[in-house]
């Protein structure tokens, strides 16, 4: 889903389908990866611009999802990125009921991260 480029983020087909549906209903969207309590450590999906990224946030990459006209930006706080930078993140979706203000929760669905270690080759090219 990320045009075959080496990147830090990707999305599963199930999640891509949900993103198309959210985009159609609400307009342009974005992700910011959360940390901490309760529904922390889960990706939060907002209307683009709803969450104001700051100077210390890291733009992890963009998701290109067929049927979504613009790329979907994925962000994380800088200090959190320090601890996460050696892993590749795939946004997936499961049934559930996250709290937080993420757009998909009322659908009874929750975005979830699946992670793997980046290979040395990937790390060198990032």
């Amino acid at each position, binding site marked *: 889903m990320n045009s075959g480029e080496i990147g830090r983020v990707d999305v599963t087909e199930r999640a891509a389908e949900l993103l198309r549906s959210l985009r159609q209903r609400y307009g342009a969207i974005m992700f*910011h*990866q*959360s*940390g*901490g*309590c*309760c*529904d*922390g*450590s*889960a990706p*939060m999906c*907002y209307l683009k611009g*709803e*969450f*104001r990224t700051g100077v210390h946030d890291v733009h992890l990459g963009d998701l290109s999802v067929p049927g979504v006209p613009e790329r979907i930006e994925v962000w994380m*706080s800088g*200090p*959190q990125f320090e*601890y*996460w930078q050696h*892993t590749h993140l795939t946004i997936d979706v*499961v*049934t*559930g*009921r*996250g*709290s*937080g*203000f*993420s*757009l998909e*929760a*009322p659908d009874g669905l*929750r975005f*979830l*991260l*699946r*992670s*793997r*270690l980046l290979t040395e080759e990937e790390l060198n090219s990032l």
Partner: protein
Amino acid sequence: MPQYAAPGTAGSVVEYRARYDHFIGGEYVPPAEGGYFENPTPVTGRTFTELARGTAADVEKAVDAAEGAARSWGKTAPAERAGVLLAIADRVEENLEKLAVAESWENGKPVREALAADMPLAVDHFRYFAGALRAQEGTISQIDEDTVAYHFHEPLGVVGQIIPWNFPILMATWKLAPALAGGNTVVLKPAEQTPASIHVLLELIADLLPAGVINVVNGFGVEAGKPLASNPRINKIAFTGETTTGRLILQYASENIIPATVELGGKSPNIFFDDVAAADDAFHDKALEGFALFALNQGEVCTCPSRALVQRGIYDEFVAAAVERTERSAPGHPLDTETRIGAQSSNDQLEKILAYIDIGKQEGARILTGGGRADPGGELSGGYYVEPTVFEGHNRQRIFQEEIFGPVVSVTSFGDYEEAVEIANDTLYGLGAGVWSRSGNTAYRAARDIQAGRVWVNNYHSYPAHAAFGGYKQSGIGRETHKMMLDHYQQTKNMLVSYSVNSMGLF
């Protein structure tokens, strides 16, 4: 009694209604847009009630009610407000089993814990803030012979409160008790995973409160939480949850220039120094229990001691004993009073925990026990259970750095005091920490050097009302519990009075 009957079956001490609306202005009001959402129990995965799906229009109505009640509630005598809090405490105490079973069924936590901790603590918090309010005093400062500065406490007005799902009634109490004591009215949004048990509480206490003092709007974060947090008519917002939503809440608060308190979790270190194992005695046993407390409430606690740091001199033996202690508790039926580990609160929590166990393994951490989903069998097979899991690894692995919010602890060793403190502080968070040592000097120094708002020394997971709770670093802003919370829910009015009849001679 070995096991309580499930709500909805014969002999249950609590009955949930089939549907709950919003509680606004002292009565139940259907949702403006007519929608409802299902509430499943994580014990079996089956739906047991449904709740009004709140939207901006419902929040507006609740804020109207809270605004309408704010003036008279804020002017009531402290003795009267304290009396209401004491009466609430009595009702909770008289209905302790009912509320404990209601919460266990909704959240998945063992009823053993709700009976012994959540509900008695809720009772105590209401009583504590009744007492704190009665004893609260303003101050008088003598500026010069004829000038006096008086400082009065005044209510903020209408406060918004967004409650997490891990302790649905106790976390609501932590926020409600000081807010009501301070003379504020409240619009509260329970978590969408656990929206119903607060209504069991409301049914018990509604007659004690003037209409509009507490208003509850159910619903999802994006549909009901956002209109509440961004509402220009609230005078404060309080939130417990995670960092990204915390930032969003602070962003909305900055737009309205209102105070916000946010409690955003942690990755709390639990440090065991060599001298813990100097004798095989009651204290050693207490320390092992302190280790195993990572599984309390299935690990769904902001202060979960999810990083255990064990000194090298005792590492092998202590960790082996700690693993054995952990294995004594397996997930079971939450309504069985012998069960110590219940169900995770929702399917997405379960999936997230399993995803973390997966990345832990990929990063090379070793599983010492657990490591998978648990199936206690029977009707529980549809619920969300995880084996208590002990990982061994190093502090730079993601399982040491991120809040998993499950019964998962990551263990590592340290050589000396300096290394212990360095590892303990190598985290984004600073909510809780545990220090275990027979040396008062070691424990004192470590507790002072650890950057966390609550450091338990030779104990863990105790939450008395008269001790301040809150985080350093990215764990949040502000405190909960303790009488200082009254300040978080009150304005300071300074009246500066001149008792001189003479002009200043300046102008």
